[in-house]
């Protein structure tokens, strides 16, 4: 099952306007440093990379580390210059990969 996400940005923007994009994804971000009930460390399972593409062009990227809390929240700005699609991709340990797409209207 795909992880739940919250993606929020203005549905419409003026050409040249800088819009704020905010994304959250449901992910445990298991650091690899915590012992489990049996005393052995729980294997690390974190998101490693987030990428936002705007009509195919990468406009924002982030590398995530074990010190980041569960359900990581990211906020960034981009300049809206044409209508199109925003594509959000998270990649992580154990082959985790998820892509979400949302339309952006530029007037």
């Amino acid at each position, binding site marked *: 099952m795909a992880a739940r996400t919250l993606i929020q940005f203005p549905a419409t923007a003026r050409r040249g306007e800088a819009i704020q994009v905010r994304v*959250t994804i*449901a992910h*445990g*971000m298991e650091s690899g440093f915590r012992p489990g009930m049996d005393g052995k460390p729980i294997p690390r399972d974190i998101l490693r990379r987030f990428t936002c593409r705007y009509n195919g062009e990468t406009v924002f990227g982030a590398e995530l580390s074990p010190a980041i809390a*569960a*359900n990581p*929240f990211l906020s960034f700005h981009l300049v809206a210059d044409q209508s199109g699609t925003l594509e959000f991709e998270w990649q992580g340990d154990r082959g985790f990969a998820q892509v979400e797409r949302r339309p952006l209207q530029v007037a």
Partner: protein
Amino acid sequence: MRLRAAVLALLAASAWAAPGDARRSGFEDMGPATQAMQRDDAMNPAMLWAAEGEQLWARAPSASARSCAGCHGEPSSLRGVAARYPAWDEVLARPVDLSTRIDLCRQRHQGQPAWTAEHEELLALETLVGLQSRGLPIAPRPDPRLAPHVARGEALFRQRMGQLALSCAQCHEEHAGGKLAGSPIPQGHATGYPIYRLEWQGLGSLWRRVRGCMTGVRAEPFAAGSIEFTELELYLAARATGMPVETPAVRP
């Protein structure tokens, strides 16, 4: 008319800050960053559970069962429900809390097995139902059958328990506003459950929160959905009557 509307709006805005009302939501004791997280739905991680709840609401759990929406319609039809729970259950002839109510509905009308306490899907539905009442004042029904249970709940609240022999009231009334191990002691009004707790890195119910307090005083925690726990919840609801529902709240 306009003056009257303005006065009403002012009253609504200051529901818990009424003169002479010393009650404070834990929200007011949080740092501005955590408050901002709760205020803004795009930043509140509990909305991940609310979104999952919406999917569960619309999905039939099996081919022969109706979905929640099949009987109740839109989730907004349950506006106000979370503000008046725990409430009396006619079949069991005892009060039940909101998560038990949801689970019973699932067993009786959808023919599904009971969920375990703190089941993620149960939390998601409880968050969705609670969210419908956000901003409404907590308003337990004046049901005479509940009265003896509320009284027993208050007795539990004032009962010293565990190896540390502490009652809820000793911390959350006598020492509310003070500090315990560097953290503020809130008055303990259960206005925003289920909550996203930063310490938990996840969403949890009031039962989980109370379990933490009870193991903290080295007492044996009440079982989820037990009559003792429901009675304590009833008293907490009576104690917070009139304070606005904050579900889903964020707490440190």
